[in-house]
């Protein structure tokens, strides 16, 4: 089929981008039990940070990524210091944090609207040009996205596996109390996890806006899609969510091609719902025995 290579290119590109977002979300859920509904806004802020860095400050294009990473990490840290750390004691944390982050998300989105206006802007941090891979012409931007995403993911995976911080994060995610007994400073871990996921979101935002455009609600739908990719894999399962990101990106690409762009998200959602009815803990999730 003639269209298949194009679908694949889209799927791989979008999948790479989503897996960055799912990584951040899964990390925060696994380590803290927190569904960060402000993640989408951190995406948006990253995209705009890159825009400002390049357009307003006149820095070279790769600084856009630096700005996005820094702002994302900063927002993550502020979320911890200003919000999360007061709420951890409450047993209804899981629920309350969702409401609180929804509030913050909308407030921040409005701030962006106020500062930059509602008109869509072009993302200056992007490459132009095409490359020919076999029979298919591929935009260099797509290649950049895939390369960057994969590199970052490998970096994060390696950090988690080998570094002291990484071990502390994994330990906290797998058994928080045992980690505490070993002297892991879990509040610092929470701070670092939020900062890291913010940085990841920031980069995702730059990449996403380079494919589409910058607008205040940029991160909202991608965040929801990334979330349901995490959920379908089993929340907290990092490699699973990356796999789910690619698979679902492929499904979305096919759907959009054959049925039209607007049916991508709905079809995705229906599939995820069906998958969750079949396996409520996620396709790769482990059934957890809850001590009542």
């Amino acid at each position: 089929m003639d269209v298949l290579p194009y679908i694949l290119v889209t799927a791989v590109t979008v999948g790479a981008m989503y897996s960055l977002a799912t990584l951040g979300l899964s990390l925060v859920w696994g380590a803290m039990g927190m569904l960060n509904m402000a993640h989408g806004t951190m995406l948006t802020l990253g995209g705009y940070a890159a825009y400002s860095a390049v357009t307003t400050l006149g820095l070279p294009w790769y600084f856009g990524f630096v700005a996005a990473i820094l702002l994302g990490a900063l927002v993550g840290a502020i979320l911890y210091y200003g919000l999360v750390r007061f709420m951890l004691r409450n047993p209804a944390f899981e629920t309350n944090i969702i409401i609180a982050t929804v509030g913050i998300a909308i407030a921040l989105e409005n701030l962006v609207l106020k500062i930059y206006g509602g008109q869509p802007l072009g993302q200056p941090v992007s490459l132009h040009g095409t490359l020919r891979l076999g029979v298919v012409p591929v935009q260099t931007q797509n290649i950049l996205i895939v390369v960057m995403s994969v590199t970052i993911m490998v970096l994060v995976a390696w950090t988690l596996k080998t570094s002291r911080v990484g071990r502390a994060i994994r330990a906290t995610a797998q058994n928080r109390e045992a980690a505490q007994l070993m002297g892991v400073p879990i509040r610092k871990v929470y701070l670092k996890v939020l900062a890291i996921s913010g940085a990841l979101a920031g980069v995702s935002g730059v990449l996403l806006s380079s494919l589409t455009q910058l607008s205040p609600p940029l991160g909202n739908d991608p965040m929801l899609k990334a979330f349901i990719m995490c959920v379908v894999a089993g929340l907290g399962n990092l490699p699973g969510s990356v796999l789910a990101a690619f698979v679902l990106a492929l499904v979305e690409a096919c759907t959009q091609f054959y049925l039209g762009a607007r049916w991508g998200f709905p079809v995705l959602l229906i599939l995820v719902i069906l998958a969750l009815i079949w396996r409520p803990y996620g396709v790769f999730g482990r059934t957890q025995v809850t001590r009542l």
Partner: protein
Amino acid sequence: MLSGVARDILIAFLFLAVFATLPFVLDGRYYTGQIVTIFFYAVVASQWNLVFGVAGIFSLAQMALFAFGAYATAMLGFYLDWSVWAAMPLAGLTTVLVSILIGLACLRLTGAYVALLTLSIAQVVYFLIVTDTDCFVMEGVRCRQFTGGAVGFSQFGDLGTRKAFRGDWLTANYFIVLALLIVSMLFTYVIVKSPMGLAFRALRDNPGYAISRGIGRFKYQLLVFGLSAFFTGIAGGLWASHFRAIGPNLLSLSLMLFVLATMVVGGVGRFWGPLVGAILLVGADEVMREFGEYRTLGLGLILAVFVVAMPQGIVGLLKAGAACLRRRLKETAG
């Protein structure tokens, strides 16, 4: 002091006395109209409170149900020329069906997962409506989409109060919406105080125990989903009939946030929470009108602050304060 039920009846009478006289006391239509919106929000929030606060299900689909009721009523009036009075009950019933469908899809999961899925469903529906571009009907040279698209629906009929009461139509509508508020809150009260309400609360507070006593989680959660949808759908239909125009903004995140905030600020799970919250929030919104574009920002921050600092809400705070006062009185007396 007064027992629970007696106290609630007293509070209800106080509220009713105030609400019944307000339209005749207030200066002009604007404020009367604002109180009507308070009633609407209170109805939806009180039904949402059944699901969220009493049964402990973190559903974010309530506004989607509200919108469904509104759209159903509007579309029945627009395409089939139904009177809104006939359309609303049907809208209510079909909203119950939709709610049960959503429940079937989402309620096998727990906690935050339900929030995600229901939010996604609401957003997808919003997305589908706004991106609907296929012409369904032609109106002269203008194209109308089946779902109304980004424009929405208008001119599908109304409550008939303009014809019957002429200049006083707003006051008439006011009392119609107030009647809906009274009925729906009564409905909520009966459910909460019934054995069913006890079962919902048991599932929320101690699921293991409840299940071991034979309260099937899925079945009961589906039940509360269905029950809460009826008046939500009717409220949607009434909203459409009152404002005579609806659009996809009913599914917007900021509106959902507003109604969510009324529940949180008022006090999740508290009977009077939604009404108190609606009054406070519409009031605050009035004040924030001065700030123009910062309105939504302020709203988001208020929600976040309340969840952090006062998760039990205003009503919870008042109750705690009253209990503290009672204890102090006892101590000084005894």
